[in-house]
């Protein structure tokens, strides 16, 4: 199997190189698909696991925490295997024999991987709710986070004055936070995080 060095992974992920990502997909997804299907999973579940593993690796690279102590083949296989075992445990799916189709190691940073996984799921959930806000609310929050003053924001978005813009920003943010807190998916993530 084609292998990728640590340097190639970092370069490919940071540049979001299409050809690199395409090869990453073509090289590793078939093996992960076989692993999941061999062990009571479906192709869709295999894709979810593979994606989640890639998000973890991507986040590690972004945060300068990515370090290979084995081959990349073994690393990605081990992460997917660990995540699938978690999934089976969480859904109480009992399997008499786990069938492997690749080499794996015991990950030394299992708890980091689990934490990163939850953070990534939260990230997508937060963005999903943010994207559901109306256009003006989104723009208002974005401009505020880009550190524009309320005077500038008021001018750009046609609020009467800075105070009005500030009040609107507070209401938008509050709406976003309430929607997130009331989302059962968020509650589930919190429970999972607390159980770890």
């Amino acid at each position, binding site marked *: 199997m084609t292998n990728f060095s640590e340097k190639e992974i970092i370069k490919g992920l940071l540049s979001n*190189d*299409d050809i690199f990502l395409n*090869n990453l997909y073509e*090289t590793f997804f078939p093996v992960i698909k076989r692993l999941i299907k061999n062990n009571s999973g479906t192709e869709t579940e295999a894709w979810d696991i593979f*994606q989640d593993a890639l998000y973890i690796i991507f986040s590690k690279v972004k945060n300068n925490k990515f370090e290979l102590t084995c081959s990349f083949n073994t690393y990605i296989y081990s992460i997917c295997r660990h995540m699938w075992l978690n999934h089976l445990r969480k859904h109480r799916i009992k399997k008499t024999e786990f069938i492997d189709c690749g080499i794996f190691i015991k990950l030394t940073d299992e708890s980091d991987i689990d934490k990163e996984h939850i953070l990534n799921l939260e*990230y997508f959930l937060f963005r999903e709710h943010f994207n559901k806000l109306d256009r003006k609310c989104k723009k208002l929050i974005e401009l505020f986070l880009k550190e524009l003053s309320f005077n500038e924001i008021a001018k750009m978005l046609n609020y009467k004055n800075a105070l009005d813009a500030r009040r609107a920003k507070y209401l938008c943010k509050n709406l976003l936070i309430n929607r997130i807190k009331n989302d059962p998916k968020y509650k589930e993530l919190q429970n999972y995080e607390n159980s770890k």
Partner: protein
Amino acid sequence: MKTQNNYNKLIDKYINSEMTGDELELFENELKMNSRLKAEIELYKKIDHAIINDGLANFNKKINDIHSEHTSSKVDHKTNFIQKNIYYLVAAIIILIIAIASIIYFSNNKKLSNTEIYSMYFKPYETIKKRSAETITNDDIYKEALHNYDKSNYSRAIELFSQLFEQDDSYMAAYLYAGISLMETNNFPEAEKSFQTIINNNNIYYIQQAEWYLGLCYLKVNKTKKAKKQFNKIISRHGFYENNAKELLNKL
């Protein structure tokens, strides 16, 4: 409700660094002791972080696009093929019916020829539309060559790839598309060389494709022993073409 709102207002003020003096001191003291408040502040920060940083979201979009391209390419390919080649398809169906009838008539178990197997498995590699991070010195020639390749003008594509190699022989993607263009024009010895260049270069991006197409070249020119060896090599690597190679070997 009012208390909750006041509480949120205070958090908002703190997050936005708008608290000063006694108010700030009181809030920070409360923060040290109140784990719920601490968690709330963390949530606010995480939400802001998710809004500002779109790196992971862009990455997610890219890999999902790749996955969709792979899962839908089989269907698209079939649809395009039917649309473009309806007459060929009708002819092919008639030939197929005659072939089946002949098989039944002669009642023998004749094996498929290498050429028949080749035509079952050979299809040009689809070009990747977006740009790679790899640099290339003469982008215009490369783009024109790819354009011709996409339009099935393989002879013109070969000319352009040759021009490109005179100036820059390091771009491995060009060797892949040149090799396939050479296969399309029945120049298998040159196609083999093109794929060997990628393999000798041990190029991680294109080695799997090069190995697969090299195997097909061997098959087409009846180097059956070499083809078998090549497909077994592909199987042992457990890569993208593993299943195709297994299937093909069963037919040989």
